[in-house]
């Protein structure tokens, strides 16, 4: 028999083996009792003594080689050193799972409402299609009042010819101040999140629709100082990073006095200082509730006082996520949505 041929076949065979069961098959084939090598040893008895000695030595060497190959391979397989189908490459990326994303306005709204809820404010909601009375007149902004200019309005086309009260798309969430007080007695603290609309030419910072959160807290002793404290707490809670808050005078016909609140993100390094970061950004109009509103709600005069505010949700989201164009919120683009 050709021992050289046998040796070569066995060597190739064992190099391809990747698991122990194949190795066992190999062992039976090359080292088993019925292996070619065993049969060869058996056949030696028929040879002359000299031939027996020479061939026997060669075959013995091969048997020793085979057993050592076998032992090494067995050892390798058991210690997982050669490639196996069960092998885990811990550096390979994991299988992807898919999740959608909440819109940044939703997350921002949730953050803000959560903060106010922690401070004991209840959430109330109101209609987007609103009567002129609640949007304007009840807030001390009768027709002809110059302050109406502050709220460019989208009006609803009347459905019938008989002019009842004119309807519009609410320009702010403030109508809910009067609506709520008509049916509720103080003390209370509420917030009113909702969609609002303005007649507006859209650009990077103006939109025809936007969201506001109205706040109203009324009691016997709710003061301007209280307003300041509540807003400072909430702003701190919303922007986990530190922000500066600034209060300055403003005017709204349904407040007295009126206040405007600005914020500015604290930046430590120069590289963080972009233009938008270094400016005071207006986030809410506010003030002490005008006593005319209490009168309209039928409250006893001179007993109740409190504050109200209107917070711009888009504004907060834009500051929080460094979004520079308000129109991105309402033009669903997968490349934008997936980022949140």
């Amino acid at each position: 028999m050709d021992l050289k041929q046998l040796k070569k076949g066995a060597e190739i065979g064992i190099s391809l083996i990747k698991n122990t069961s194949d190795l066992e098959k190999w062992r039976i084939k090359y080292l088993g009792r019925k292996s070619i090598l065993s049969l060869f040893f058996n056949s030696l008895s028929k040879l002359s003594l000299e031939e027996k000695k020479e061939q026997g030595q060669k075959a013995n060497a091969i048997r020793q080689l085979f057993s050592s190959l076998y032992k090494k391979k067995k050892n390798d397989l058991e210690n997982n050193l050669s490639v196996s189908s069960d092998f885990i490459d811990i550096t390979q990326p994991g299988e992807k799972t898919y999740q959608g994303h909440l819109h940044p306005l939703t997350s921002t709204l949730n953050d803000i409402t959560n903060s106010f809820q922690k401070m004991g404010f209840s959430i109330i909601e109101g209609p987007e299609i609103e009567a002129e009375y609640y949007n304007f007149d009840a807030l001390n902004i009768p027709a002809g009042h110059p302050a109406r200019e502050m709220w460019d309005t989208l009006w609803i086309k009347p459905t019938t010819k008989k002019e009842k009260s004119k309807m519009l798309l609410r320009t702010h969430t403030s109508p809910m101040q009067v609506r709520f007080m008509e049916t509720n007695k103080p003390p209370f603290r509420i917030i009113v999140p909702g969609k609002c609309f303005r007649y507006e030419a859209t650009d990077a910072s103006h939109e025809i629709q936007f969201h506001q959160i109205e706040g109203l807290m009324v009691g016997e002793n709710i003061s301007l100082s209280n307003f300041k404290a509540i807003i400072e707490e909430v702003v701190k809670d919303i922007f986990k990073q530190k922000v500066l808050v600034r209060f300055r005078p403003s005017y709204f016909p349904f407040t007295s006095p009126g206040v405007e609140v600005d914020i500015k993100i604290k930046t430590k390094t120069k590289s963080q200082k972009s233009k938008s970061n270094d400016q005071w950004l207006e986030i809410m109009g506010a003030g002490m509730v005008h006593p005319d509103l209490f009168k309209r709600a039928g409250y006893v005069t001179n007993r109740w006082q409190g504050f109200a505010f209107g917070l711009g949700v888009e504004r907060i989201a834009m500051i929080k996520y460094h979004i520079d164009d308000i129109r991105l919120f309402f033009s669903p683009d997968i490349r934008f949505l997936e980022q949140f």
Partner: protein
Amino acid sequence: MKFSYNWLKDLLKFKESPEKLADILTMHFAETTVKYCGKRAILDVELLSNQVAEASGHLGLAREIGAILEKKFIYPKINLKEKNLNTKDLLNIKTESSNCNCYLARILQGVKIKESPEWLKDALADCGVRSINNIVDAANYVMLETGQPLHTFDFDKISSKSATVDKKEIIVRQAKKNEKITTLEDEVYDLSEDIMVIADNKNLLALAGIKGGKESGIDKNTINIILESANFNGVNVRFTSKKLGLRTDASWRFEHNLPLDLTDYAVDRLAQLIQEVAGGDILKDKVGKGVSKKGKTLIPIKWENWEKFLGWPIKKKEIIHYLSLLGFSLQQKKDYLLAAPPCFRNDIKIKEDVMGEVARLYGIDKIHSVIPQEILAIPVQNEFFEFRKQTKDWLKGYNLEEVYNYSFISEEDKNILPNVWQQKLIEIQNPTSALTKYLRPTLLVNFLKNINYNFRFVNKIRFFEIGKYYFKNKESLKEHFVLSGVLAQKEKSNNSSALFYETKGIIEDLFNRFGVDKDNYSFKSLESNEYSLLLEQGTAIYKDKDLIGVIGIPKEYLLKKYDCEENVIFWEIKLLPLLEIVKEEREFQSLPKYPAIIRDISFIISQNILIDEILNIIQEASPFNLEDVDLFDVYVGENLSSGTKSLSFHLTFRSEDYTLKNEEVDKEMQKIYKVLKNIGGEIR
């Protein structure tokens, strides 16, 4: 509004830099920024609506800065050298309209029209006003100085009172029907009776408070002039200006109800300035309807109110100090303060206004923050709000992206909609463009636009939105929150049924998460429902007899219109009715006492037989102890003849009264095999 920094400095003699001044104004008055016109600093003050009457002139703003800087401001005194000839001998003013609060006129004779001196031109340029000639510029300058709009007429162009009397007459009246006026800029306006005009006996001279007329304007040959200083009703001026679409600096000022006292001071100041820049003689006195002295507004404020309202202890001395700086007259009583606002502050009406002024001057930013000492109370949960929030969170988990679309649809969108849908649209009276003409009656239309746009970037779209749709019901306007969404896949070859089942699965799972049992709602065909005009195939979700939502494939005409001829599944579910179902009481069911026996069954059956029918048939065949039937596998394809499907169910048998025996269940199974064979089922 633009103010010249140098002008203010001349009036008040302060030391603050333009930037410092802008800061102070922002924190105590109104938002102010600094701009430069060459080397001259300009303050751009965003006057608040209530501040226009008080501070739209440099004098007013200087007075305000004086109060903030605690620097006494003194109004410049005017000394006029008047001629002996009296104005009333040459001019008569007739005020017929009740919209005219006061109207004063002076006459200057022998003026010389020419270019303005440089200082005057510069001052106007700083405030963004174009120079015309010395007379017009002087009038604009005094307006910028005092806040009072002024007008000048050419005396010789005004007609006489009558043919017999050689005396000019100016009439303030409402316009007549069909009257027209040509303004200085040659624009012609048609007037109506609700518009106030200035006229003589022949012509219209001006639109009161808005714009001068061409007939009476100053030109290069003018020698004698009439100065007008008047106060018109703000609402009427605003109305006219809106109606004619003509807004001017003057109309903007009048809209804000200027103080009446300004007229007198301003007309004298203008006479003085014109004499300075154009020469001429000032006639004695002024004519017209003067200001009737009003009693002062007195506002009593209890001393105890201050801390209660503002929130920090503030001393009487401080209160008096700040209010005096602002020009209030004060009387201190034992229990209260009697505050009278100065005549130029007609925006101060109630005690809160007065207390607010003190806070403003003190600095709202500096006041103490005090957490309110209120009763601790857990806020009332807003069920509907929380429900929507939870829904969004769960939908996100189904790999859906949340979007916010516009609440509007366009004229073009309207035209594609079926009649029934068109009729219930709510229309906007003054849309910003054709794109925002109607409120959306369904979220479908805008979603279809999203698909087309986003297929530029991806092949698969999974969007949802929770928002309102709007519609008209007879005369009432309705708005409802809905949960809508789309699943869309680019290749048409992929069958849309898989996408439909996926959507249905999401909806079912969502309902299940809210604990809504399948017994509480049902899927029916679209049939007569108005969504059937929008959807080709699909299902309607019902709670008893009420439609609460739909799932389906948009009709071909819609897909074509919005260029998304792909696989699209849309759904829309009314949220309030869904919440009602979620809120329905769920009772605990006692745990089963006896074990169940579960058998599986698989059979091949025609695809035309609906799963619902099969479920019903199985239930009817074994009405007593069959607890649950659960479809766990549907197979269509290789090895099955076309038009058939293979279905596999788990059947759970249980008795409430005893342990079922295998033989009993075998019997039940035989019944079920039989009915299934009856409808063509081939048991495997």
